[in-house]
């Protein structure tokens, strides 16, 4: 393929171009946040804005969700391979959410628009966003007991939804007729497409300033630069073979764990992430698509190297992936995969970090809480009258590191999402949140402890609400490392109106799994508690500095009992 052969562009200009790409994506993100309809976007920021070259390489991104930034090149490359570059005309917008065409899971939709320069597509601006309702068997399209992709929502191969700036109305009608909340989807898709318009204008300014050939050469050289950067980082790691494993506690269908296993080979300036020892794929939706596994591997490496690397497809090149189709880390058609992206991804990434602990023990962290506590609900709003659904997530603890405690209550590593403010949640949906707290003693002890988890209680204020959940780590714990203790499990519990205590969903509703279920109907006055998971600690807790133990005690993050038991505190 023809790449512009310009001489090496100076490093200052390359930095400038990289920053310009980052800024284009940030600005898209601001437009998306400010104009979208669903809290998962305008509060949660569960989307990522990006730029691609005409080969589908990621060339620009900003501080969005790692899983989307790692996987988007596969969706884009698929799109180009399937429909061809010539299919893109000015004003066209394509959409694509098919996990069996390189997308990470069904709710995440990639919209892209080609930016035209001198009559030809110069590259693409894109936005991957987790659309909160895309049909399927469960409101909020998080079908925790689905056994096929077809139950998870509407599959869209790469198709054109804007043709020369005009809505392809027949298609929009099909899409919106398959969503439970078409008006919200309409607003959200507008925001996604609007962000592309904003980006297109900015990229055109850059093209005017630099010219198409120069900007292409600069982005190619940035890809090469990031590749060199990553190779230099890997080359610094000791050669060797490193192993790690962890499991998903169940798949919502069968009450047994599913294991992912990594044999990591560091050799010279390349890494091979071999997942062949992982379990076969699950019947339930905890399977990761190949692109999710690839993104987890990239993200794992990016987390242990310098923060200065420009993030693009070049950075991913030295990391090679080996998987077996039909396994937990590479689901085969028609297996379900909605939870693979949100729940299995952080587990996979923790396994990557655990394996890397053998190579760079000072740069990894212990395992994090690693569950977004996906909680979805839908129903008719008693006041507004219309049907709503919402996708709600919680933060968990991050793992302890060699020189500091893990962060408390943070979005798991696969995303970079925000929580939804209580005041916004209650204004939009018929719940009253009665508490939202940090869970004391929820972190694994260590020389540097894990991050703490959160707890939230919802009280239902509508006659009925249909709820779905997809959690993990309710029976397992995020392991500590080098003598650190594991974090506390997560959990979702129900207190029926009139009851005095919270109980498990299996007990009250007979669900197979306590953490993964759909279409449970709760009624006015019921209370639901979402506990996220704490993270593992790093190093022997007895080596923790006494002033840190005392400060945790003083602020109530740990109890006196825990201080004595885990840290041998005598004071």
């Amino acid at each position: 393929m023809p790449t512009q052969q310009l001489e090496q562009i100076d490093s200052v200009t390359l930095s400038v171009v990289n920053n310009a790409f980052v800024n284009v994506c940030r600005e898209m993100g601001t437009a998306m946040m400010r104009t979208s309809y669903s809290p998962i976007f305008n509060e949660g920021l569960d989307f990522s804005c990006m730029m691609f070259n005409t080969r589908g390489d990621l060339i620009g991104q900003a501080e969005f969700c790692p899983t989307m930034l790692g996987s988007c090149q596969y969706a884009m490359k698929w799109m180009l391979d399937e429909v061809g570059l010539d299919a893109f005309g000015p004003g066209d917008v394509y959409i694509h959410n098919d996990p069996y065409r390189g997308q990470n899971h069904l709710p995440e939709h990639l919209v892209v628009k080609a930016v035209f320069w001198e009559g030809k597509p110069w590259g693409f601006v894109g936005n991957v966003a987790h659309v909160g309702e895309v049909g399927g068997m469960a409101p909020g399209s998080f079908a925790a007991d689905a056994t096929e992709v077809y139950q998870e929502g509407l599959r869209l191969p790469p198709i054109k939804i804007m043709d020369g700036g005009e809505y392809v109305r027949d298609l929009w009608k099909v899409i919106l007729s398959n969503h439970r909340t078409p008006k919200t989807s309409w607003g959200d898709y507008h925001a996604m497409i609007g962000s592309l318009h904003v980006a297109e204008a900015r990229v055109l300014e850059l093209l005017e300033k630099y010219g198409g050939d120069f900007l292409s050469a600069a982005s190619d050289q940035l890809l090469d630069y990031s590749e060199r950067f990553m190779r230099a980082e890997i080359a610094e790691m000791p050669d060797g073979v490193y192993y790690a494993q962890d499991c998903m506690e169940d798949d919502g269908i069968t009450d047994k764990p599913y294991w992912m296993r990594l044999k990591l080979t560091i050799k010279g300036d390349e890494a091979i992430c071999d997942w062949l020892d992982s379990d076969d794929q699950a019947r339930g939706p905890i399977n990761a698509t190949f692109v999710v596994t690839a993104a987890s591997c990239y993200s794992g490496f990016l987390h242990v190297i310098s923060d200065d690397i420009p993030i693009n497809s070049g950075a991913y090149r030295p990391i090679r992936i080996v998987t077996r189709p039909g396994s937990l880390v590479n689901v085969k058609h028609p297996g379900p995969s909605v939870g693979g992206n949100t729940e299995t991804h952080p587990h996979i990434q923790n396994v990557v970090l655990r394996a890397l602990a053998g190579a760079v023990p000072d740069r990894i962290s212990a395992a994090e809480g690693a569950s977004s506590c996906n909680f979805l609900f839908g129903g008719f709003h008693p006041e507004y009258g219309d049907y709503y659904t919402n996708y709600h997530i919680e933060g968990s603890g991050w793992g302890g590191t060699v020189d500091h405690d893990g962060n408390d209550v943070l979005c798991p590593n696969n995303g970079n999402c925000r929580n939804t403010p209580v005041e916004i949640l209650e204004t939009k949906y018929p719940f009253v949140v009665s508490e939202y707290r940090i869970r004391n003693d929820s972190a694994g002890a260590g020389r540097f402890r894990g991050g703490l988890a959160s707890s939230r209680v919802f009280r239902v204020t509508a006659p009925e609400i249909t709820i779905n959940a997809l959690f993990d780590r309710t029976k397992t714990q995020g392991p500590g490392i080098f003598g650190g203790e594991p974090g506390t499990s997560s959990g979702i519990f129900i207190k029926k109106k009139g009851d005095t205590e919270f109980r498990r969903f299996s007990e009250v509703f007979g669900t197979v799994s306590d953490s993964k279920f759909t279409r449970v109907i709760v009624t006015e006055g019921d209370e639901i508690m979402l506990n996220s998971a704490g993270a593992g600690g790093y190093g022997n807790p007895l080596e923790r500095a006494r002033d840190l133990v005392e400060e945790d005690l003083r602020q109530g993050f740990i109890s006196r009992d825990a201080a004595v038991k885990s840290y041998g505190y005598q004071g």
Partner: protein
Amino acid sequence: MPVRIGIDTGGTFTDLIGVDEATNRLVIAKTPSTPRRPVEAVMNAIENSGVTNDAIAALSIGTTVATNALLTRRGANVIYVTTAGFEDIPHIQRMNRKLHFSLKWRKPKPLVERRNCLGVVERLDFHGRVLIPLEVATLEALATDIEARRTEYPEGSLAIAVCLLFSYVNPDHELRLRDFLRNRFPDIPVSLSHEVAPIWREYERGSTVIADSYVKPIMQEYVSTTRDALEAEHLQMPWSLMKSNGGKTTAESAEAEPIKLLLSGLAGGIIAGHYFGQLLGLDNLVTLDMGGTSCDVGLIRGGKIGYSTNFEIEFGLPVATPTIDLTTIGAGGGSIAWIDKGGLLRVGPQSAGADPGPVCYDAGGTEVTVTDANLVLGRLNPGYFLGGKIGLNVAKAEQALTQLGERLGLDKHAAAQAVVDIANENMANAIRVLSIDRGLDPREFALVAFGGAGPLSACDIATKMGMTKVVVPVYPGLTSAFGALIAEPKVNKVWSKHFRSDSTDAETVDRHLKDLVAGVITELRAEGFAGEPTVSRSVSMRYWGQNYEQDVPMPDGEVTPELLDRTLDEFHRVHEQFYGYSISGETIELIRFNVEATGHTSIPSLPSLPTNGHAPTPTPTTRPVFFQGHGVVDCPILQRDDLPAGFRLTGPAIVEEVVSTTLVHPGQRLDVHPTGVMTITL
């Protein structure tokens, strides 16, 4: 000979500039700041200015007291009072992180200790209806908790921040808490979230009210010591303080809501930049205030200063009060150059500061800074830095640049040029954040550059941004103080009331807006303003379903259904302009009604310089200076004080003055305005 005085209390220097209202004569003074007792430097500056006490007509002060208290974490011990069950919100924050691929990033520590976050049993719903009433027993329990803390913390160091859920809809419980707490603890200041920031999102509102409490004791101390010092000198002129929104306010109002002075010391620069733009007939300006360690960039568009309510103390610690829209980056003369793992040259954000300072200070600094690079390029006069107060060691700087260059395969000039280029690129990026990121074309803007280091880099940065005009004010080292001098009193008020566009009530809106307008005018009067104020109204709106609002100006006149319709139409138009689409027929939510009143005061004129007819044409000296694309050039060096009105030259040239150096590149044209303001046309 009444003299109006503006003072800027910075981290290193306290600057004063005054204008004699009768003669337009300028007086200036620059004294070292006295961070422990900022008022001392203020009084010293007044004394040094030579203006007699009875000649001072008015005094306004910009101060970084609040900014520094926040940045150095030396504020109050805050007690955060909130709805029971939500005590951890300041620590939970928003769950996202600044760096998306990093295990090193650490969540910001809130300005309140967790043990001091106290819950009270009470609850409102989203309509503001009471779900759980606030009982007397609850108040008593809270008083016991607060009482216990009084013995633990130093006297005078406590402040209470109250943030209850949905207080922006119904403030009743917050007001009752205030009355109770003031009565019970009259010595502890209380801040209320619905007053400081009447917005939804409990974390952002809470973070803002915590920040207000955090700086309250220190600002109250600052205000009272200033008041005492002025009284001790029998200074009885009106005096005021700069606010973050670029207006000024009375001492009393600064004590009541000190968070509104967060950017007091930074806003002056933009106000002054606006003034100089107006003076030259320029409506679109970027202001660049660059010192040793930081660089503040502001934006003036269509003759108007931009505003924001999204300021962050650091990533994740928002302050949601109106501020002049500015962005600050860690880039200045002291920024350090380094080479990253991939072999790329980078500059900053680490700074060598004043101690040890750049290599050329010869005070132990070993890391190359931007100042070193400028020195090696010949742009700085080694014998006249800060008016000759610091001698610069050229040989050391050259040696350091040579070594850095060897690692990059560059000679010392190319290495120095690269360092300067990258530093300027960082500043250009700060400009991009304010301009390009908002869809504005910087090429349509002129760059107003000041601060000690601004005029040196301005032409480079402007070139990078495709800008064609640079403005260097008179006394560029005192521009922020000049901003304080000319700032006008400004009052904002907000009515938070929710309507849907299909069910607005023009009559109610009209009544409330009239009340708001009356309120802002009353406050302006209280601040000593006697003239006719300018009042503007706007409505914060969004499409039904969206979560973020857009402020849309409301036309003047009585609020009628027709006028509301026009305002709604304007929302569609603004949405289309910003985001490339509008959704016609969609319901719009009206969230807040905003009123702002400004008291226009006559702005002093600058004195005129002599023209060519009177003063001799300056005769420049020369010095070798490196210019990219030209190599080392024998460059004319001029003293600014020698330049008459109407003077013009074509670069290369360097114009030196006591606290700043202006660099004119080959081919650029310098013009001196009758007031002494320099413009450079690129």
